[in-house]
């Protein structure tokens, strides 16, 4: 177990270093010139050249990357080109909003997905089952910006139940969480359905029924806990979906998280910020996958860590 953990952690660190190299290389070949952006349109060629020199943009790729990498080891993500602030501070300031949104999304997707999957499994083969699974397909096929704009239109513009956008209170959180959760709800309902069907097929369920327990008790006390655990253990993997989703959802709802930070930085070619957000997302994704893998054998002893 410890050996496995150490090996996985080392692997994860290598992957993250790889991510940082690839991102840096990508942004290095970007045709836009950050120095020109900082200097402004009216600046002379000389000023621009000075800024380039100052930022070390004339150095070869390896040198630039190495400097960045050494900084990373000290937790230094560099400075934003345009805002003259530490990227680490910018990301840290935005992170709580994003984490809150993800938490809301997890609640929404589990509530919707597990319920749908459970009902579908219990009504297996009926029209209810088919209908619910079509709904789950709609969930995974719906573009998040459309879901978001529609929810905004119906519940904020028309009905006025929720604010149109922004951040601060619980009611601000509801629509963005729902939007981010719809995709996951689609996946969870399908996983929950098949997990529940698997469990209901087991001998111990038949035994429980045979000894005269009520169906309700068998389903909720005996089957549900076993069916739900492996599904919930997947939450770690969701982080990848979320990290893509937040860029869209945060821009639709004006949610001040790292998705919007990245999006604004991309439009202004603020490379250190883009790097910072990409790395933070990659760390989250890698940790999420690691978590899912490590948790799995505790939930299902048949799974062995290799």
């Amino acid at each position, binding site marked *: 177990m410890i050996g496995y953990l150490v090996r996985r952690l080392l*692997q994860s660190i*290598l*992957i*993250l270093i*790889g*991510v940082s190299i*690839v*991102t840096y290389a*990508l*942004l290095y*070949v*970007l*045709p*836009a010139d950050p120095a020109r952006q900082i200097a402004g349109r009216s600046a002379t060629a000389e000023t621009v050249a000075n800024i380039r020199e100052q930022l070390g943009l004339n150095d070869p790729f390896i040198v630039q990357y190495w400097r960045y990498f050494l900084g990373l080891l000290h937790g230094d993500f560099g400075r934003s080109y345009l805002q003259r602030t530490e990227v680490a501070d910018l990301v840290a300031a935005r992170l709580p909003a994003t984490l809150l949104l993800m938490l809301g999304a997890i609640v929404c997707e589990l509530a919707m997905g597990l319920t749908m999957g459970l009902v579908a499994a219990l009504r297996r083969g009926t029209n209810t089952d*088919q209908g619910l*699974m*079509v709904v*789950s*397909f*709609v969930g*995974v*096929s*719906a*573009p*998040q*910006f*459309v879901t978001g*704009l*529609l929810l905004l*239109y119906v519940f904020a*513009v028309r009905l006025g139940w929720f604010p149109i956008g922004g951040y601060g209170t619980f009611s601000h959180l509801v629509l963005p969480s729902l939007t981010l959760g719809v995709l996951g709800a689609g996946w969870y309902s*399908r996983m929950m*359905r*098949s997990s529940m069907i698997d469990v209901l097929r087991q001998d111990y369920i038949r035994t429980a029924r045979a000894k005269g327990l009520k169906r309700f008790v068998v389903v909720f006390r005996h089957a549900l806990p076993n069916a739900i655990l492996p599904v919930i253990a997947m939450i770690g993997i969701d982080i*990848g979906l979320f*990290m*893509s*989703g937040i*860029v*869209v959802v945060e*821009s639709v709802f004006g949610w001040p998280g790292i998705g919007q930070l*990245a*999006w604004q930085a*991309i439009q202004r*070619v603020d490379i250190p910020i*883009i790097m910072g*957000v*990409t790395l933070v*997302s*990659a760390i989250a*994704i*890698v940790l999420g*996958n690691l978590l899912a893998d490590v948790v799995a054998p505790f939930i299902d002893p048949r799974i062995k860590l290799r």
Partner: protein
Amino acid sequence: MSATTEETSAGPVRRRAPRGTLRRLLSRPLAVVGLAIIGIVTFGAIFAPWLTPYGVDDQMFDGLTLQGAPLPPNGHFLLGTDLLGRDLLTRILFGARTSLIIGIVANGVSLAIGSAVGITAGYFRGWVGTILMRFTDLMMAFPALLLAICLAAVFTPSLWIVAMVIALVNWVQIARVVYTETRSISEREFVDAERSLGAGSMRILTKHILPHLVPIIIVWGTLGISVTVLLEATLSYLGVGVQPPTPSWGNIIFENQTYFQAAPWLVFFPGAAILALALAFNLVGDALRDILDPTQRGILS
């Protein structure tokens, strides 16, 4: 479990040939719905210029109200007009071309890359395989959308560039699936038997491994189009995908979203089109998985 004698012998286990596939597909109502939607969208895309009296970029004199607001759906403009007074139905019909072209091209390229990587890594293993799969792991750690946005920002987005960007982001999933499958096939006895008879790698790959991969490539190829269509729409919605005036379902919403509270049809109709097409490929893909890949039963079996 007593399927055929062939399956228990050392001979190649033939997956059910894709021959009866279409017939079996047509016996599933949801797959038929999916195929119908794909058919309608394809028809609309091909015959767009003949289906509508307006041009894609025609800014109609009577396409805006006197105050300059877009028109809601009416007898003249069936789905209403956009902020510039263009017919929305026309833009959506031509937008179908964008979605389908990118869906097919981008997905084709990512299938090709993914299969090549997966087969190479799965068959040859060794250090080549290790490097390829570690690189795949690395790609999996990227937030897909962020990577696509960065790539799209590196190149000036045109239709083909967007297709390539999507392909470069999406091949990873397919590579992993093909890798796992290739590994398990090349460990089978019939491959050993063939090798001991003196067959070269090329022959084993083309004659024995590739045919077994066809079903999963078909399944993932279909499901992948749905992912591609959604990613294109999202990139275009964020303004880094297909650029106006070329219509795309995503950029129609991007162009008009400032006005969407007053003119929700400008979001609703193109949004419904994206959803319908993505849903269609998911429904067909899931049915295909059911039919072609008995190890991974689709959910609607």
